[in-house]
Every structure is written in C-alpha cells, then in structure tokens.
C-alpha cells in the first residue's frame, strides 16, 4: 500500500481517491455545496476554473461535477451539487466526515488569461453559476488585469438564485452583478425575465470583450446569439457543455458531440467550435 485510500503504486485516472466531506452548506432546496479534503497523503492535482471531477458516492454512482471554488493548493475541493438522481442525491446526503471518491481534474478551462486587458461578461443560468464561480473569483482577485467585469445571473425564481450573498460580495469587490428571474415570488423586487434581456444593458464593448457562459444548453444558445449581436466574436464566447460522461478521459465515447469528446476537448468550448453542432437536433 502506497497511500491511504488507494492500494496502488501508479494511479490510473479511472480510480478514485478518497476525500472527506469537511464542510457542507445548503444553497437552496436541493442544492448543496460540499468542501472536500483528502483523507490520506494521496491528493489530486490542482483544478483550474472550468474543470470538473468525477464524484463517486460509494454504492450509488459517479457523476461529473465542475469545481465551484479553487482552494489554495492544499488539495481541498469545492463542488456545488444539485440532487437530481441517485448519485447526486447520495452526494448531497453526505455528512461532514463522510468519504467520497474523487477523480480528476478533467477537461478544459475558462480562458481567463486570454481575456486579459478587455471587458469580461459572465452569464449564468441557474446552477450554471457554480462552474463559473472559480472564474469570477479569479477575475476579482486579479481585477486590475481586466476592464469592465459583469456577471449576469438568471434563475427560474428568487429561491433558485445561487450564491445570493456572494453576489453582493462580488458587487462590493468592484464588478457589476445583475440578476433576473423567470417568475418573481415573495419580496423579489428585481428584474423579471430571461437572462438574455440583461445583455443589452451590460457595460461591455463587444470588440474587446470575452464572455463565459454556463447554463441549460438552450439558454446558452440564445445568450450566445445576444452576445454576438453586441459584437463579441464567437471565438471569444465560451460555453460549458454537458454530456453523458463516464470515463472522463476520452475513451468511453458517451460524451461525443460530432468529432468532439466533451470530457477531453471541453467542457469549455469557444462558441465557434460548437455553434454549428448545437444547432443540429439530437447530434
């Protein structure tokens, strides 16, 4: 045995590493943020904003989940998970101290460096804000590398607006944050309507802007069209796609989108690589 949690000298990326739930926070009805730390000496390489891990709840299953925060290199991982099936349900049911299996990091990153010197617009739909949060936090941490930074968040209802207190923190940290909901409830006094409606109001100049978009695929397609309409070239509009992922290393074939393996070539893609593909039904 070479490391706690795994009895193997050379670890295959197909084998999970044991992580412990160090902290847990309820975000909304069925959505939780879990902070994970390595159980033994074995830890995964550092994740970058946009990348994902395969989270395994013992006996229940394994799912791809993007990192929702980047720790400072000590091996901790943060994931925001919505309970929609057996595996995600079991992950959300995990209590502090419980152990999960984790594989990763996998996939491509939000190209933050390439956005330097220009405006940045981040557009999130629902839980799509989670994979964008590490990028937003890095934009704030390195605020002077960018011009106008805008975060636009849409949710179905006020109860489903992810990270509400952080939205306020981000405003105070010097970036514009605008929100909208499909249908208002309770004491919501903000905007009502699709997130696409926020784009014409956002303070960026298309020719020097970069966009990061994550949400339901249909939302991303409409958002992308709006962003293009405001002059952002498709090569600088980046979307994060979701497909069936099982091996996460480009071998099992489930995540194929035409010639692309979403797990390996994505999940973050420049729009010009995927736009014609997303327009074909059932591709």
């Amino acid at each position, binding site marked *: 045995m070479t490391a706690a949690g795994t009895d193997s000298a050379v670890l*295959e990326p*197909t*084998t999970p590493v044991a992580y412990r739930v160090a902290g847990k926070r309820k975000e909304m009805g069925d959505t939780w943020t879990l902070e994970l730390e390595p159980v033994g000496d074995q830890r995964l390489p550092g994740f970058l904003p946009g990348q994902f891990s395969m989270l395994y709840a*013992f006996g229940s299953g394994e799912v791809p989940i993007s990192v929702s925060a980047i720790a400072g290199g000590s091996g901790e991982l943060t994931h925001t998970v919505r309970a929609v099936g057996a595996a995600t349900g079991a992950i959300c049911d995990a209590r502090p101290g419980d152990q999960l*299996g984790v594989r990763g990091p996998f996939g491509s990153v939000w190209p933050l460096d390439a956005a330097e010197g220009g405006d940045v617009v981040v557009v999130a739909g629902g839980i799509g804000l989670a994979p964008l949060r590490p990028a937003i936090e890095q934009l704030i941490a390195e605020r002077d590398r960018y011009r106008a930074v805008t975060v636009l968040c849409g949710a179905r209802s006020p109860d489903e607006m992810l990270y509400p207190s952080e939205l306020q923190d981000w405003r105070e940290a010097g970036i514009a944050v605008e929100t909208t909901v499909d249908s208002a409830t309770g004491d919501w006094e903000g905007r009502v309507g699709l997130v696409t409606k926020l784009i014409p109001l956002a303070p960026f100049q298309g020719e020097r802007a970069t966009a990061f978009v994550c949400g339901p695929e249909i939302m991303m397609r409409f958002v992308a069209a709006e962003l293009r309409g405001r002059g952002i070239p498709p090569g600088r509009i980046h979307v994060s796609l979701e497909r069936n992922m099982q091996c996460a290393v480009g*071998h099992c074939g489930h995540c194929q989108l035409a010639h692309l393996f979403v797990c390996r070539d994505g999940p973050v893609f420049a729009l010009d690589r995927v736009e014609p593909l997303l327009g074909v039904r059932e591709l």
Partner: protein
Amino acid sequence: MRVLERKSLSPLLEALRRRGYEVIGPTVRDGAISYEPLSSADQLPVGVTDEQEGGTYRLAERDDGAVFGFNNGANSWKNHLFPPELSLWKGRRDEDGEIRFTEQEHRGGPYAFVGVRSCDLAAISIQDRVFIGDAYVNGDYESRRRDAFIVAVNCAEAGNTCFCASMDTGPRAGDGFDLALTELLDGGHRFLVEVGSERGEEVLAEVGSSPAEPRDVAAADAVSEDCASQMGRELETDGIKELLYRNVEHPRWDEVSERCLSCGNCTLVCPTCFCHSIDDATDLAGTESERVRRWDSCFGLEHSYVHGGSVRQSGKARYRQWMTHKLATWIDQFGSSGCVGCGRCITWCPVAIDITEEAAVIRATDRIEAVGINADD
C-alpha cells in the same frame, strides 16, 4: 520470403507457446468462426468455409482441406485486447466509513494472435490510436497489446460483405505483423511466409521453413489479386467526411431508422467500436463495490443520457451517430476512418442494413448546398 509446409503449423503454434504466448486463433464455436485460445493446431477450422450476406452467416464444408478458407466471424481480436467486460477496481467501505480502492491488476497476455486478417490488423492499429495514442494511455489495453505476436493470414477469397479493398485495408497485410501467411493449395498445401519482425524471424527459424521459390511468390500474389477482385461490396471514400458532415440532415436517416432495430449488433461485431460503460455493482450491505468496464453501444438510449433525457432520443439520431462516427468524425478524432471494410456489421445486422448501401444512397442524393456541420480540427 519463406515457405512453411502445412504440417509445420502445429510446430509454429508450439513454438509460440514455448515462448510464453497464449495462442489465440480461429476455431469453430457455436456454428461460427471464433477467435479463441488454442491448445492445439487440431482446433483450427480445417476444411471449413463460410457463406455471408446481409443478415446471413452460415458455415459450410470445403473439400480442399484449407486451414484458413473462411472470412471473419462475429468476434474479432478486440474481444481479447479490449475485453467485453473488465473489472477496473474493487472498493471497500469499512465500519468507520473509510473507503479504499484497489485497482485490478492487468492480467492479459502476452498473446500470439494467429490468423489475423488484413482488415483486422488495420482495426487493431485504429484501436491503438484510441486507447494508447492519446494523452491518457489505457494501461490494460497497453499491456495486452504491447507484446502481442501477430501471425497475419492473407485472405484468399473475399466474402460477400467484404469491402477492405475500398477502405485500403486489404486484402493483403502490408505491415503490423510478425509473420504473414498466404495459404497456397495448388501444387502442394503450403504457406508463403513474409517476415515482419526480428522475433518473427526467430520463431520461423525454430519451426523450420524453406526459401520461397518464384512460383510460390507468384502464386501468393495471384491469391491476393484474385481476392481483391472478388469484393462483395464497395464503398466510395472520396470526400466521405465532407459528404456526411454536409448531409447531417438527410431523409435517408429517417428511412434507415425505420428498418434499424437499434439492437447494437453492428457495434458489438465492429472491430473498432470502442464505446464502453463504466458500471458499478455494490453488495446489499453497501460495503463492497466493484467497478466494471463493459462494451456499450451508441444504439442504446442510455448512451447519451444526461439529466432530463437522452440527447439522441430517436433511432434516426442513433444510426446517424454510428455511421457518421465510423466514416466521418473518426477521421477528425483519430486521423483515419473508423471502418476497415470487414463487413461484419452487414453480415450480423438482423435486418441486413448495409453501411455501403447507406453511404452510396446519401452520395447519390447528396444535398450539395446544405450547410451541415463543420469540424474545425
């Protein structure tokens, strides 16, 4: 070039076994040619041939005593290099909730594959690019493949569903083998042997062979030329990637999906199809778990399942995925076609859907003006 006598086949297999190889070769099993572990040359399908057509496969006798007088059966060398089911790791959760994963050892090989047809040699090299040609190397495949000794056999007759000549993968093996045999029946039952590696040379020296005479070489050339002229099918590959990208919306996909049963036979018999699922099985107590890799098929609804439903709901979308992957997107992914022209998908399709016919119909009704999809890389 050398000549191996018919009676030297048994010593050849023996020499391979002596060197520590598990010998896998053709034998008759369940009414079909199957590549199985062989303990003796007597298990080879002597005097057996096959009759293949769309949706049809039958063995028949032949009276010339040919040892390799048949074409491919349903299974391929993929069954040994990329086994249908493979345990990846076992997990254990103890009473304190500690979880631990133990990787399964890579157990396969070293293999000697005897009787590899040229199309299947091409298929092996295609799966090499999938499993060991990328950033992540699949350790199990690599260990099975690395030391495999390959005895190719050049086909003497093409089957009715064969089209390797169209795919430029046969019928004569070009490289990638240690030894390549051409079975010669006229003028004495013997094999012309081409040596492809140093260890092939060594094995042949142990078995004993004689120098080939011009008439042996000429006879083998004639066998391969005859075979190439007998192809039961053909597939025009010129510009096929662009053809299928352009015709991603084409009425033929609807038409073929009305016949397709989405059974997945074509993907199971295909020597290059690599899709697999990652399945977990856990005991009822929830303490022991095993992860297994299993062949999967893009014809299953589960294949493209994401929360909310499968991406490819219709049979049309699933057939289009398979054929477009095989003949077009594969080229962008791995630098070659995913089809080697072995014809298995035609033979083993229960409703005789024919990939060469489907491609030809789309070509004949090419929607030249269609935008389709573009691959950027």
